[in-house]
């Protein structure tokens, strides 16, 4: 047993596929009750990591502890307290939604009565109750994904692993799933979320890890990660008359100036001072400011900077 303070503890996790190192000595932990985002470009090692955390594949090296249970020594007990939504998983399309849920209940040893009650609750929550006796092959992609998430919740797991749960879904279905994840987190469940959508990670996660080439590039709260890449704040301004961008390059605190359509974007590490200088400029040149915005880096900027930096 590695420890039981955290929901997930990962030590020195490594996986090779022939000569290729997919996951390279990862160390991190996920705290009890947090939504932890796991981000990375395609081929970074996200799915391989999730598969090792959920006991689907065995690591070549390292340890994974789930609520204090070593996934290699106690795989059945560890899996019993997890819910898993794999990246490309599917429900059994020849079975009805109800039968899929009951199969999951039986697979996780949920008593029959509890299984029925839980299936009814989940079908209601995910707005699928009316379709419970319909075969899954007649479901839309969004309905299938909701059912897959409902299936992962049949055992009332303590930790939920979701690999790209909103990928390819329409806005409404994606929002429903995000709201559901927040609700589950409020109920005390730890959520390990792999996603490509930065905004989704920004909205949902208390901490995120960015993985690239099998290694952790950064791990922190989204806002702290944004603060790490200083100099990326910018002021966006638009005047009522065209201006020369070179007029602004000598302003104090301004690092770079770029034109973007009719807008001027000034990258600065002193946004307040830059705004004063822009107001002075407009007054002295008899120009009117049509629009002025201060923008901070997004998680996407952090992601691109960190993943590009490792190329």
């Amino acid at each position, binding site marked *: 047993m590695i420890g039981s303070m955290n929901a997930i503890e990962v030590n020195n996790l490594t996986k090779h596929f022939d000569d290729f190192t997919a996951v390279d000595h990862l160390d991190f932990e996920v705290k009890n009750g947090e939504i932890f985002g796991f981000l990375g470009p395609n081929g970074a090692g996200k799915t391989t990591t999730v598969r090792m955390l959920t006991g689907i594949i065995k690591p070549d090296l390292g340890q994974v502890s789930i609520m204090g249970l070593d996934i290699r020594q106690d795989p059945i007990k560890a899996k019993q307290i997890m819910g898993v939504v794999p990246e*490309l998983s599917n429900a059994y399309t020849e079975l009805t939604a109800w039968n899929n849920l009951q199969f999951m209940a039986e697979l996780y040893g949920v008593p029959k009565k509890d299984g029925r009650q839980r299936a009814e609750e989940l079908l209601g929550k995910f707005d699928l109750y009316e379709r419970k006796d319909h075969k899954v092959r007649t479901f839309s992609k969004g309905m299938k994904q909701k059912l897959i998430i409902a299936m992962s919740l049949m055992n009332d797991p303590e930790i939920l692993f979701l690999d790209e749960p909103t990928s390819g879904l329409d806005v409404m279905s994606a929002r429903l799933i995000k709201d559901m994840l927040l609700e589950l987190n409020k109920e005390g469940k730890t959520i390990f979320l792999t996603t490509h959508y930065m905004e989704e990670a920004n909205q949902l996660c208390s901490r995120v890890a960015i993985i690239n080439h099998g290694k952790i590039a950064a791990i922190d709260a989204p806002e702290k990660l944004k603060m790490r890449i200083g100099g990326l704040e910018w002021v966006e301004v638009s005047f009522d008359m065209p201006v020369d961008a070179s007029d602004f390059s000598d302003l104090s605190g301004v690092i770079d100036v770029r034109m973007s359509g009719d807008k001027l974007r000034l990258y600065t590490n002193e946004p307040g001072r830059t705004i004063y200088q822009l107001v002075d400029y407009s007054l002295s040149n008899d120009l009117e400011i049509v629009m002025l915005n201060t923008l901070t880096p997004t998680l996407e900027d952090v992601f691109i900077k960190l993943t590009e930096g490792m190329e």
Partner: protein
Amino acid sequence: MIDQLKRACAIAKKDIRIYYLKGPVVIFGILFPVFLFLAFVIGRDLPVDFLIAGLLSMTIFFTSMSITPVIAPTETQTRNLERLAAAPVSITTVLMGDMLASVLFGIGISLVPIIVGMAIGVTVEHPFILAAGIVLAAFCFSAMGLIFSSTPTSMTSTVMMISTMVKFPLVFISGVFIPISELPSWGQVLASASPLTYITDLCRYSFQGTNYYPIWMDIAALVIFLVIFMTAAVKLHEKSLPKRL
């Protein structure tokens, strides 16, 4: 242990609902042995009880081995395998579930030649031996099917082709159409290496009262083959699972 057995039953229930009427199961499990049997018996003057015993052993052989090779490649293709791999069940439990579905299919369909035989006047002289033999052989051949399904592919046809390449020759060396005693000595040696030989011998004993090997040897051989096949299947599936995700 009991918990895992219950979960294996849940997997078997799912398999029964999904796979019993799949095309490859009907073709390779039912139609193929029927036509193979007809091709060999039409025009030949053979005693009915000899034919029914042969048909029965061949039916158990083909039907019990028709479900298990279909499940793994299909679930690889439909992306259901990862869900099972993430569930709190061992590979042995998953394979036990698949095997159980296959066994029930094999036993169910094997009742057809028995009923047909009885309808045309064939009597079962040793019903308990026959029942034990059918159950044991169904487990043995289902486990054999699991070995084929460990091929890391999502193409059911690939697995069925490999299994047919093995099944077809076994039918000819196992005393189904020609009694083992009439085979040349090299044929008798080959026959002893086939699990189908022992259930055929048990069926002949049950219907005709004649047997080539002692009954205990037939049963022991089926048990040994079952243990070997199941052990090999678990090892092979453990190895091939990551390649199928």
